[in-house]
């Protein structure tokens, strides 16, 4: 089974092999409210962990999305760009943002597993 990791900035990454699928968490979409715009990275773009990689805009605020790991973007979710409501409807599923080829899987150790992330969120809500 593939593992899911979480960042302090409320991104998630689900890793299968050397490819990670990334998005924002259920908690993040709830805090943002109705999402109206998502700007995604072009495939082929290289990023370092914690670099700004995408932008999400809701009726309340615009927020940067940071790369949870270093690597190269392999795919962006055009469905989300066309219909940002998908992020509100299914943040952890159909509402994924982009896929990235991990350049250093050891960076996952800087992220949290679900139990730790849930505890972080419980403290913030």
């Amino acid at each position, binding site marked *: 089974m593939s593992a899911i990791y979480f960042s302090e900035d409320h991104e998630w990454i689900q890793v299968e092999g050397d490819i990670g699928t990334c998005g924002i968490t259920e908690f993040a979409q709830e805090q943002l409210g*109705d999402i*109206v*715009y998502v700007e995604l990275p072009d495939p082929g773009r290289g990023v370092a962990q914690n670099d700004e990689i995408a932008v999400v*805009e809701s*009726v*309340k*605020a*615009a927020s940067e999305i940071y790369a949870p790991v270093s690597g190269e973007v392999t795919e962006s979710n055009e469905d989300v760009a066309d219909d*940002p*409501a998908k992020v509100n409807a299914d943040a952890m599923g159909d509402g994924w943002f982009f896929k990235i080829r991990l350049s250093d899987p050891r960076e996952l150790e800087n992220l949290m597993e679900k139990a730790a992330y849930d505890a972080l969120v419980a403290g913030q809500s």
Partner: protein
Amino acid sequence: MTDPNTIVTSSGHRGLDLAEPLIFELDSPGRCGVDLPPAPAVENRLGGLERQAPIGLPGLSEPQVVRHFVRLSRNNFAIDAGLYPLGSCTMKHNPRLNEKVARLPGFADIHPMQPMETVQGALELIDTLADWLLTLTGMPAIAMSPAAGAHGELCGLMTIRAALEARGDGGDAREVVLVPTSAHGTNPATAAICGYRIEQIPADDRGRVDLAALKEKLGPHVAAIMLTNPNTCGLFENEIVEIAEAVHAAGAYFYCDGANFNAIVGKVRPGDLGIDCMHLNLHKTFSTPHGGGGPGSGPVVLAEALAPYAPLPMVVRNADGLELVENAFESSIGRLKGFHGQMGMFVRALSFILSHGADGLRQASEDAVLNANYIMAQLQDLFSLPFPGPCMHEVLFDDSFLKDSGVTTLDFAKAMIDEGFHPMTMYFPLVVSGAMLIEPTESESKASLDQFIASMRHLGERAVSGDAEFFAGAPYLAPYRRLDETQAARKPVLRWHGGAGEAEAAE
């Protein structure tokens, strides 16, 4: 007895509150306010580029057009109509004296390309205003031309970049601008457009810049810090002198965002705090109309180190009087604007300054701060303060008092419309949850503040008592009910395409 809220009128009007369709829906093809003779036949020289279809303007008579716009204007809410507590925007009264002076033909009818000797009065006005702004800020140099606050930020960061390059410290050497998490969005946007990478400085639990975190982030890679003081939580950055020293020790420059200068005019000279440049929003602090009412104006004061890089043109006094210098020195960043700033705003701002005098300007700031603190004192038992007071010119509440009530900051703001107030700034700054930022300015009397406070308390008590359904439906009494802001952002309809199927056609 008939309940007035249940009355349905056949016209759609509510008494003298008149419903008004779009101007295109009033179209009567061929109708026109004037009779024009038919256009003479001329040889077509457009080579096939001529218009193929009618332009699509609606046909209306003059009285129809006048009524249309007068009716729409009655749906406006403005500072001239009531309290407008939009935090961070300084929606103060625009004195009518300013308007009268700005309309004097000598100011209103001049042209920016007139011969210099015919506009000596205008140049002297710019020079006098510049002198006041330098005195109030305690700074040695000023650039008058920036057209608004964000334009002033751009001017400031461009001079900083030029100064760094001149000392061989430009390019990739210093590529970071530090911005606090509570900053106005224009700060990181300005830094980004100037080619810098933005690093955020966290706030401490007092809502101020975390000095230790700032010092950790400073280094030879940092070009500048951009800091608003008072900050967007309405709090004075009381460690600003230490911040300036640390920034300068690291070889970086200190850009101060002057958006909140209204809190400290005549009380603090930013130059004494160690800043290197700061823009002034004449349209906020010095009462020129804004918020759809007029252009902004954002002069920038500069320290000695940045003065050589100021934009052109600039007003200089020489033997023949005042001169607008276009090419004084090569180090200038050049021209930022077509002409020399917003003349009409200069006139209004100087009119405000001279009619108040130094003591009046100081009192205006004191009153603005007093008013915000009065609101805080009257509401803090019911609403929740993220940071303890006293505050400066604006008071910030968060939404923790609404926890478990089912009412959101947005719902609360909508209910304020039914109470007859422009809502406060919502969800900004982002550093607190569900922010409500209230800036009354010095324009409000105690009676008007008391009325606002009574409405806030009335709604606050209703919200915490668990009447979420009422808030979800607000506003009830506005010309339009709750609009779908999400849909408006996701699928905006920006053009009239004529009649049925409008929304689909626009996608």
